[in-house]
């Protein structure tokens, strides 16, 4: 089998390496496929489906799908954009996202994805669900109102920190991140230096006493859309 695999994304020829996923090969080629749950240091598990692309006519998660010789991938189409917008819209109404006072605002990947997709307002009715917060830990705060259930904290704590502080409990609308402790986060062995304290794409797991440090206008996504760092590699 040849080391190099050639395929196309939106008609552009891409050369990837055997074993790479569509997302990895696209990143290397400077083509941005929108994504939310994916983080390069973690094992991709395809939960958010924002990265859905059409592979040889069928929808697949680009973050988990390996590349194969000659495959055709559609990424930047009006239908996929619409599909991604729907997912983002749902994530907004299924949580309580008060961006105006959220510490993560301007650096939040969910918000940035909405900006990139040009969403002025979610089209579904807001659910205003009841979610709890955990402010017991001296250095870290969990606000489940903003959790998008991406699973990054679960994986990072398990696979990188080797602690398993977080796990999902419940199903469907009742699914939530729980902590491996008697009661609250303070009872766990979670530390602010843990990888899991750094991976949350939204303002759900945040460090105390560092919020709002970067002025408005200079935050990560204030002027450059999410993904532009990848597109600039081209």
């Amino acid at each position: 089998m040849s080391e190099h695999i050639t395929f196309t994304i939106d008609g552009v020829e891409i050369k990837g390496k055997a074993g790479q996923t569509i997302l990895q090969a696209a990143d290397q080629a400077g083509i941005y496929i929108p994504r939310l749950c994916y983080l390069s240091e973690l094992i991709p598990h395809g939960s958010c489906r924002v990265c859905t692309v059409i592979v040889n006519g069928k929808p697949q998660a680009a973050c988990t799908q390996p590349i194969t010789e000659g495959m055709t991938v559609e990424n930047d189409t009006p239908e996929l954009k619409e599909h991604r917008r729907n997912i983002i819209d749902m994530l907004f109404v299924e949580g309580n996202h008060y961006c105006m006072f959220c510490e993560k605002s301007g650096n939040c990947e969910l918000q940035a994805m909405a900006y990139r997709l040009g969403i002025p307002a979610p089209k579904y009715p807001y659910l205003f669900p009841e979610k709890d917060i955990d402010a017991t830990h001296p250095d870290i705060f969990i606000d489940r109102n903003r959790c998008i259930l991406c699973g990054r904290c679960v994986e990072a704590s398990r696979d990188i920190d080797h602690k398993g502080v977080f796990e999902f409990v419940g199903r469907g609308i009742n699914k939530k991140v729980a902590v491996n402790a008697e009661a609250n986060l303070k009872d766990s062995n979670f530390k602010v230096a843990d990888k899991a304290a750094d991976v949350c794409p939204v303002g759900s797991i945040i460090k105390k006493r560092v919020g709002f440090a970067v002025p408005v206008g200079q935050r990560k996504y204030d002027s450059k859309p999410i993904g532009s760092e990848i597109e600039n590699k081209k």
Partner: protein
Amino acid sequence: MSKPKIATASLAGCFGCHMSILDIDERILKLIELVDFDKSPIDDIKEFTGRCAVGLIEGGCANEENVRVLQDFRKHCDILISVGDCAIMGGIPAMRNNIPLKECLDEAYLNGPTVHNPENITPNDKEIPLCLDRVYPCHEVVKIDYHLPGCPPSADTIWQALVALLTNKPLELPYELIKYD
């Protein structure tokens, strides 16, 4: 030809979005050349004097009066715009949506740490609009044509949107002007 009219209202909002309208600074002189203001706190006209091209709504619906005003705007305006996060998602007032209304009122008028209310009365004068069970975004009450997000949306956002609509151009906000904070 007479100028098109603009109307504005603040429902359950803090008037920050209206401040942002004023923040268009000297461009307000250009705006006055383009439009006349109808019902609006800016000129203190209380009732519509006629049909309006554009209605700008700040704030969501927290009480029955908000709903009435919003419905009145829908009736009188060709284009209705939700201005700001309170109009779009309820904003800060919507934080009460997870708390039963009675608990909110009890905290505000009976149990709050700074409350002095020896007669233990929750205000109930018929002049006071009844609170809704929760705060509703405007587009869950009437049809809204455009949304300008932000808390508040910047003056540039409001300006660009108005100029586009008044000159019959498509309203497309550039990346920098879509902000939720």
